[in-house]
C-alpha cells in the first residue's frame, strides 16, 4: 500500500504541533516504534505540550509515555520520510533510493506510465530517467484530461488487485489543484516546509491542499522528506530545480595551461604496436581473436604513457592504456596491417603484414594521412538507416534486445563507418536518437548532426585553450541538434521493438554532451585534433589544432611536414647503441630484427648484442644483411668494432636439425652388421650397436624376421641364440 495513501488532513493538522517541538523531542518520538513506550523525562519541556495536544498517554507511574493510537500514521510517515532525504541530502539519497523506500515494485513500474518496455524490464535507471526531467513535469502541467495519464499509473499492467486504487485526480478541480501546487514548487529555489506551503494554500485554490498533494506524491512528481530539523519539506527533484533556475550558459573561460599534451597518439600507438609485433609476434588465444594476457601486457607497456592528469580527466577514454591498445589493434586490423599466423602446433600469433612494413617505410605525413583519412568528417558518407539497422542488429531479427547493442551507433552513423570500432556500448537510448536522425537525414538529405558537430568543435579553434567542462556544458545547451529535432521528443518511437521511450530535454543535453565527449576523447585527442592542457588549478582545457581543423574538413591540406622515407638521423655508436635522432618507424622495424630494443621513437632505441645477433641468425638472417641494413640506415659510417663483433657473433651461430628418429639397438656388433645388411638404404648405422631406421619400417621388420632378427623389448639374448633387436624412438 502506498506510503502516501494516508489521511492527509490529519497529517497536516499535526504539523503546527510538530513544528513547535524541540529537535530532541522529534528525535525521541521517531526513534521508537510508534507503539512503544518511552521515558517521559526524555521529552523534557515538550511533555506538557504533547499531553495537552493529546499526542501522548502517560503510564500509571507517570514515568513512561506512549503515543496516542491515532498518531501512529503520522509518525510512521515521518519515520519513512527520514529514511530517504532526497531533497535535503540528494548526494546520499538519489531518486532511485527514494522510490525504493516509498514505492513498491509494481508502483514503481506504474510510475513510468504507458511505456511497456520500461515496465517489462523494470529498469530502475529508466524509471528515474522518466521522472527526473523537466519535460515530465511539463507534461503533467500540460494535462487537460487526467484520465488516460492516471489510468495506467493507478491500475498498471502488473499491479496486483489489492494495489489497484481509485483515481486521485478524480475531477478537473483536482487536476488543476495539483498543477497549481506543482507550479508553486517549481517557482521555489529550494524545498518548502510542508506546513508553510500548506498555510499558503487558500480558498481560491481549485481543490484542497491534501487533494493536490497526494497525486503529486503518488506519481513521484513532487517529493517529500525531512530536513535536518526533522520537519517535512516538499519540493521537486533537486536536479530539475537547478535546471529550472540555472543561469544562462557562459562562454568557456580561457585557461593558461601549465602542461599540455599534443601529438597523434593514435598513430604513434599503431606504429608502436606494429614495431613491437615486428620484434616479437603476439601470442593469441586459440580463437585467433583475443591476445593472451602476457602479450596484452607487453604491448600495453610499449605504449607511451599518457600524463596522469589526462587519464584522470573526462578524456580518459582516449588516454588510458587498455583503450589505446584496443584502438591501435582495431586500426591495424582495419588497415590490414596485421594478420593472424598459425605457428607451432597451430598456435595463433598476431604478426605484421607486408603492408605494415610498407606502411612503416612511408613518410610520416603519408602514414598520418592513411589513418586520419578514415576520420575526416566531410568525406564520410552518411550511413543510411538500413545499414545502421543492420549494425544494430547483427544477425538478429525480431528478437533484438536493444540494450545488447554492441556499438554506439551515434558514432558509427555520424563520424565514420570505422569509428564504431572505437565505441564501447553506451546504452540503447542514444541509438534511438541516432536512428531517428538517420531517418531524418534520409528524408531531408541534410546532415544536421555533422554540421552541428563541426560548428561546435570549430569554436575551439585558435591559440587559446578553453575550459573543457564549461565548453561541454555550454554546447550541450546551445547548438544541440538533438534539442532542435522535435521528433526526438515524441513519446512514441518507431523502431524500439517494445514500444517507445520518453526522451527528456535533460537526456538530450546529456547525450549531445556525451557525443561531443566521445568525439573529443576517442577521435580528436588521440589523433592530434585537440591539444589538451591542464592549468595550475588542475582544470583541463582544449584547443583545436590544425590537424583537428583538417579532420573537421575545415582545411584541405593535412598540416604535417612531409618527410622523405629514410631521411631520419640514425647513428650506430661504437658501444653498440643505435640512436634515433628522429622517428623512423621503417628503419626501426628493420633493425628490430637483429637488435635488442631499449627505447621507442627517439633516443637509444636498440643495442646490438650477441644474443640479438644469434637470434637473428637462428631465423636465417646473415651478418651481411644486418650490416647492410645498418649501413643503409646510419647517417655515419659504422664503427669498425661493431661490424667486427657482429660478424663474429653471426659466425658463432650453428644450425642443427632436431627430428624424431627410430633406432635399432643391437645386442652386438655382428647383429648390427646383419641389420645393416638387411636394411640396405632403409637404415643407417649410427654406432657399433645402434642403427637408425630411415624409412620402410614394416618392410624392414618383416625382412629382419625372415633373416632371424626379431624385434623384442630386451637385448639380453646371447649371440648364439636367435638375435633380437630393440627399436626405440628417440628425439
Amino acid at each position, binding site marked *: 500500500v502506498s506510503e502516501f495513501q494516508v489521511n492527509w488532513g490529519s497529517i497536516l493538522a499535526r504539523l503546527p504541533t510538530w513544528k513547535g517541538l524541540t529537535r530532541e523531542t522529534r528525535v525521541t518520538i521517531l526513534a521508537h516504534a510508534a507503539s512503544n513506550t518511552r521515558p517521559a523525562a526524555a521529552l523534557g519541556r515538550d511533555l506538557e505540550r504533547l499531553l495537552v495536544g493529546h499526542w501522548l498517554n502517560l503510564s500509571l507511574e507517570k514515568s513512561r509515555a506512549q503515543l496516542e493510537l491515532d498518531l501512529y500514521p503520522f509518525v510512521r510517515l515521518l519515520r519513512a520520510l527520514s529514511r530517504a532525504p532526497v531533497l535535503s541530502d540528494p548526494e546520499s539519497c538519489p531518486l532511485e533510493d527514494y522510490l525504493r523506500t516509498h514505492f513498491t515494485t509494481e508502483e514503481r513500474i506504474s510510475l513510468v506510465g504507458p511505456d511497456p518496455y520500461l515496465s517489462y524490464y523494470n529498469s530502475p535507471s529508466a524509471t528515474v530517467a522518466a521522472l527526473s526531467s523537466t519535460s515530465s513535469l511539463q507534461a503533467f502541467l500540460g494535462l487537460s484530461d487526467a484520465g488516460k495519464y492516471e489510468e495506467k499509473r493507478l491500475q498498471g499492467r502488473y499491479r496486483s488487485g489489492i494495489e489497484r486504487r481509485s483515481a486521485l485526480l478524480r475531477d478537473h478541480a483536482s487536476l488543476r489543484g495539483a498543477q497549481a501546487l506543482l507550479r508553486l514548487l517549481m517557482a521555489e529555489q529550494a524545498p518548502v516546509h510542508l506546513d508553510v506551503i500548506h498555510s499558503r494554500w487558500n480558498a481560491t485554490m481549485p481543490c484542497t491542499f491534501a487533494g493536490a498533494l497526494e497525486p503529486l506524491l503518488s506519481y513521484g512528481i513532487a517529493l517529500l522528506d525531512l530536513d535536518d530539523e526533522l520537519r517535512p519539506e516538499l519540493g521537486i527533484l533537486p536536479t530539475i530545480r537547478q535546471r529550472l533556475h540555472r543561469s544562462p550558459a557562459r562562454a568557456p573561460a580561457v585557461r593558461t595551461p601549465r602542461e599540455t599534451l599534443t601529438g597523434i597518439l593514435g598513430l604513434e600507438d599503431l606504429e608502436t604496436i606494429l614495431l613491437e609485433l615486428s620484434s616479437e609476434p603476439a601470442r593469441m588465444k586459440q580463437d585467433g581473436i583475443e591476445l593472451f594476457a602476457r602479450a596484452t601486457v607487453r604491448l600495453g607497456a610499449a605504449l607511451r604513457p599518457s600524463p596522469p592528469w589526462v587519464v584522470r580527466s573526462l578524456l580518459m577514454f582516449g588516454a588510458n592504456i587498455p583503450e589505446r591498445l584496443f584502438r591501435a589493434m582495431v586500426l591495424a586490423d582495419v588497415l590490414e596491417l596485421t594478420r593472424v599466423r598459425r605457428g607451432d602446433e597451430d598456435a595463433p600469433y598476431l604478426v605484421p603484414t607486408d603492408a605494415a612494413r610498407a606502411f612503416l617505410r612511408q613518410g610520416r605525413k603519408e602514414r598520418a594521412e592513411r589513418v586520419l583519412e578514415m576520420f575526416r568528417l566531410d568525406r564520410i558518407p552518411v550511413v543510411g538507416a538500413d545499414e545502421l539497422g543492420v549494425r544494430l542488429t547483427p544477425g538478429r531479427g525480431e528478437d533484438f534486445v536493444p540494450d545488447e547493442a554492441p556499438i554506439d551507433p551515434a558514432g558509427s552513423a555520424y563520424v565514420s563507418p570505422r569509428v564504431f570500432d572505437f565505441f564501447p556500448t553506451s546504452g540503447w537510448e542514444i541509438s534511438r536518437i541516432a536512428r531517428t536522425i538517420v531517418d531524418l537525414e534520409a528524408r531531408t538529405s541534410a546532415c544536421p548532426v555533422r554540421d552541428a558537430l563541426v560548428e561546435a568543435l570549430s569554436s575551439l579553434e585558435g591559440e587559446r585553450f578553453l575550459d573543457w567542462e564549461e565548453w561541454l556544458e555550454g554546447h550541450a545547451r546551445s547548438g544541440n541538434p538533438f534539442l532542435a529535432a522535435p521528433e526526438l521528443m515524441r513519446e512514441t518511437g518507431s523502431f524500439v521493438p517494445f514500444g517507445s521511450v520518453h526522451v527528456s530535454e535533460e537526456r538530450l543535453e546529456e547525450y549531445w554532451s556525451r557525443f561531443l565527449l566521445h568525439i573529443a576523447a576517442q577521435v580528436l585527442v588521440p589523433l592530434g585534433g585537440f591539444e589538451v592542457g591542464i592549468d595550475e588549478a588542475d582544470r583541463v582545457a582544449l584547443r583545436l589544432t590544425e590537424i583537428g581543423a583538417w579532420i573537421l574538413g575545415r582545411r584541405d591540406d593535412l598540416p604535417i611536414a612531409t618527410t622523405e622515407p629514410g631521411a631520419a638521423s640514425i647513428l650506430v655508436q661504437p658501444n653498440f647503441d643505435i640512436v634515433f*635522432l628522429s622517428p623512423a618507424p621503417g628503419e626501426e622495424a628493420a633493425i628490430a630484427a637483429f637488435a635488442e630494443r631499449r627505447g621507442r621513437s627517439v633516443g637509444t632505441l636498440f643495442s646490438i648484442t650477441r644474443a640479438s645477433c644469434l637470434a637473428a641468425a637462428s631465423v636465417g638472417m646473415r651478418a651481411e644483411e644486418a650490416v647492410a641494413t645498418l649501413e643503409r640506415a646510419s647517417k655515419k659510417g659504422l664503427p669498425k668494432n661493431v661490424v667486427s663483433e657482429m660478424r663474429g657473433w653471426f659466425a*658463432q651461430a650453428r644450425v642443427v636439425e632436431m627430428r624424431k628418429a627410430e633406432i635399432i639397438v643391437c645386442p652386438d656388433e655382428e647383429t648390427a652388421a646383419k641389420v645393416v645388411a638387411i636394411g640396405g638404404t632403409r637404415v643407417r648405422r649410427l654406432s657399433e650397436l645402434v642403427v637408425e631406421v630411415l624409412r620402410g619400417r614394416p618392410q624392414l621388420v618383416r625382412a629382419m624376421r625372415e633373416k632371424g632378427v626379431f624385434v623384442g623389448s630386451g637385448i639380453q639374448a646371447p649371440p648364439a641364440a636367435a638375435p633380437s633387436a630393440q627399436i626405440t624412438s628417440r628425439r
Partner: protein
Amino acid sequence: VPPNGPLIVLNDFQVLLEVDHARFPDGRDLLLLCAELEKAPEHVHTYRLTPLSIWNARALGLEVEPLLADLAREARFPLPTNVVHDVREWGKRYGKLTLLREGDDLALDIDDDALAAEVASLDLARRYIVARTAPRRFAVRTAERGRLKQALTKAGFPVRDLAGYTDGEPLALALRKDTAAGAAFALRDYQLDAAGRFFASGTARGGSGVIVLPCGAGKTVVGLACMQHVQTSTLILTTSTAAVRQWIAELLDKTDLSPDSIGEYTGLRKEIRPVTLSTYQMLTWRRRDSDSFEHLDLFDKREWGLIIYDEVHLLPAPIFQVTASIQARRRLGLTATLVREDGLERDVFALIGPKIAEVPWKVLERSGWIAKALCTEVRVPMSRGLALEHAAAEERAKFRIAAENPAKLPLIRELLARHKGSIALVIGTYVDQLERIAAELELPLVTGKTGERRREELYRDLREGKIRALVVSKVANHSIDLPDASLAIQVSGTFGSRQEEAQRLGRILRPKSGENQAHFYALVSKDSVEEVFAQARQRFLCEQGYAYRIVAPGELMAGDEREAQGAEVRS
C-alpha cells in the same frame, strides 16, 4: 617549429647530445651544469636529469626557468611536459630549506608554510629537530646537522647549509712557483677556478662540495689549492697507502710544507700532524665484525679545519656516518665520476656537498692537459689444445684458462718493442701469469706481496726512467702517479669491472711530452669467454669516449698508425 638544437630531451629524463652538431659545445656546457653524464660514445652523448643534478645546478646559483628555457632553446624537439614539470618541482625544492647558525645552535628555516608542515610531520626529520620555534623555523641540535640534511635530502628536500664552519687549527701553506724537483709550477685555469669556487671567498656559501675531474686532470693539485685557500689543518683520506704516499710527495713537491708537518696514518705509521693522510680502509678497519672501528676517532684527534675525500665515489658507509657528525668542518670531495655503484649519490650531496666544478675530459684532452688514448683489443687465438680445454672447462675456470693464454706473451714482447720509447705497464689479475711474464720478459713485478718500500722504489725508477716497463697486478689500479707512462697492456681483467678499466686507463692519461698519445691494449683470447667480459669493457670505454678497435694479432702493427690518426680526427 622547434629549434634544430643539439639536444634531444626524452620523457625518461635522458638527454641526448649530438656530438657532430654545430652547437655541441653550447649543449654540453649547459648539460654540465644541470645533468649527469651517463655515457659519451663517439656520436651521441647521453646525460640524465635527476633531482640531484638539478639541485647541484641550483646550488651553483642557477634558476630553473632560465635553465628550462636554455634546454628548450638547445633542444631539437619540444621538451616533454613531464620533464618540464618535474624539473620545475625539483628546482623549486632547492633553497626552500636553509640551515643557519643561531648562537651556539642551528636553525632550519623553511620558506613555505605547507613545506614546514610537511617537514614537521616527517618521522625521519623529526628526530633531529629540537623544537619548532616559529611557524617556519625549527631549532636543530648542532650535532645532528649532517643527519638532518641526510634525512631531508633522502625525503626529497635538499637543505642549503649556510651554518658556516669552524676555522680549525691555523696552518700556513703556500703553493710553490717552482716544484721541489725544480720544474716550473702553476695552477691550470680550471684548477684555479675549481679551488676558487670551493673557497667562495671564505663565506658559508662555499667550503663544502665535490669537484669532478677526469683521471689525470690533477685532482690532487686542486686539493692543494683548496688547502692554500683555507690555511687550516687538513685530514686527507685516500683509497690506498700508495695514494697516501703520492699525496705526500705532491705536498712536499708543490707546497712549502715541511716533512714534519705532514703525517701518515696508515698500517705502518700512526702520525697525526697538521696535515694528516690516511686511507678509507685504515679508518674502517676493525678486528672483528662485532668490534668498533678503532681508528675512526682520527676525525676527532685534531681540530681539523678541512677534510679532503679523494675518490669520493668510493667513500665507504662508516665514513659517511662520521662525516654526518662533522659538518662544521670544511669538506672537499674529489672524483672522476659522481656515479656510485652503491647508488649513495644523495648522501654525497647531503654530507660532502653539491658538485661545485666539473670539466669534461675532452676539453682537457684538446687543451693538452690529459693524453689522448687509443684503445685496442687484440683477439689472440688459442692453441687447439687450449681451445678444447677451454670448451670442456667449467664456467669460472674458462675465464682463467682464456686469460692465461700463453700466446699473449709473444704479443706483449712485440708491443713493448713496437712502443720502445714509451714507459709501459703490463697489467694483469693473476699473479702466476704475471710472474711468468715478468720472468720471461725480465721485467720487475709489483703485486700485493711486494713490500711498500720496494713498490715505491720501482715506481720511482719508472718515473725517473731507470726502468721502462713494469708488470703490475691490481694493486696499481688506484692513485699511482706515473706521469710518463703512455702504454698499458692489459693481459687479464677482473670479469669486466668498469671501475677497474677506468682506473687502469687513468694510469696512462697524464699529459705526455711530444705527441701526447697513450695506448691501451687489452689482450683477449679469441672465441673464449674472455670475449664476453671484454664486451663489457669495450662498451664502457666507448661510452667514456675512447676510440676502440678490435684487431687480430696480424693486423695490429699495420693498422696502428692509421687508427691513431682516425682517433685524432674523431676526437
